[in-house]
């Protein structure tokens, strides 16, 4: 993540719309398809709302990852809220503490290629998720070490 990084502070529901708009805009600049840009924007929307509901405030950073040939978008959502007591359960369907239906985290994970949660009770949560550009996702699979022989 470097020059293209954009950070959006999340403190109100309007900030969620701004954050997913930035994600969509960056996806467009990096050559992601419209559908993939919408998948990314939807995941940002979910994670942004999680910040608002569970922590009250935080930030979402979107940026480019990969190398000269392959491009991914990385989203890092960070808060200093109460943390998640049981991450494994939070990633299961139907587990919700914020009045939702417990779809947010598992649903967002399905929209992205990589998804990671770091959390510490009383200190906060950081969700890092990324998605490869469609044509590069195949290149990543092709170049995986176990395929090189």
């Amino acid at each position: 993540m470097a020059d293209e990084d954009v950070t959006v502070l999340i403190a109100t529901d309007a900030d969620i719309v701004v954050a997913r708009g930035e994600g969509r805009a960056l996806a467009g600049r990096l050559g992601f398809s419209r559908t993939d840009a919408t998948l990314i924007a939807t995941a940002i929307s979910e994670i942004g709302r999680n910040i608002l509901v569970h922590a009250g405030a935080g930030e979402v950073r979107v940026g480019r990852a990969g190398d000269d040939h392959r491009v991914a978008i990385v989203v890092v959502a960070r808060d200093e809220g109460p943390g998640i007591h049981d991450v494994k359960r939070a990633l299961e369907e139907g587990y919700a503490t914020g009045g939702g239906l417990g779809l947010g985290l598992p649903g967002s994970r399905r929209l992205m290629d990589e998804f990671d949660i770091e959390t510490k009770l009383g200190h906060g949560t950081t969700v890092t998720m990324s998605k490869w550009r469609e044509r590069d996702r195949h290149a990543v699979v092709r170049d995986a070490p176990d395929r090189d022989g």
Partner: protein
Amino acid sequence: MPVPILKQGDYLIASIQSALIDSEVLELRDDLADRIGRYRSQGIIIDVAALDVIDSFVARSLRNIARTARLRGAVTIIVGIQPDVAVAMVQFRLNLEWLQTALDLEEALAMLDRHTRERDRDGG
């Protein structure tokens, strides 16, 4: 900016004009519930073509609108779900079984007309 709601005969048509913040989604729910009673509406059409995403909050809110409307005697049809938004909703695995949809306004109006005719016939 509140979502404009047009009254057309026995129906209400809510045309979402842009991405909505959460509080505007809830406002739309309350506005519709209020107007169904005031106008004795039989059906609601919500045009979501301008929504940039339909995430779990928006989907849940739309479902609550449909359920509330049902209790008030009206049917809800969602129109204009964009192709990329539809892909995201499926991949997210949103529960969509409750959802009555139509491709566009014309089809939604025809569905509501059919529904109203059937109900009048069965009721009479």
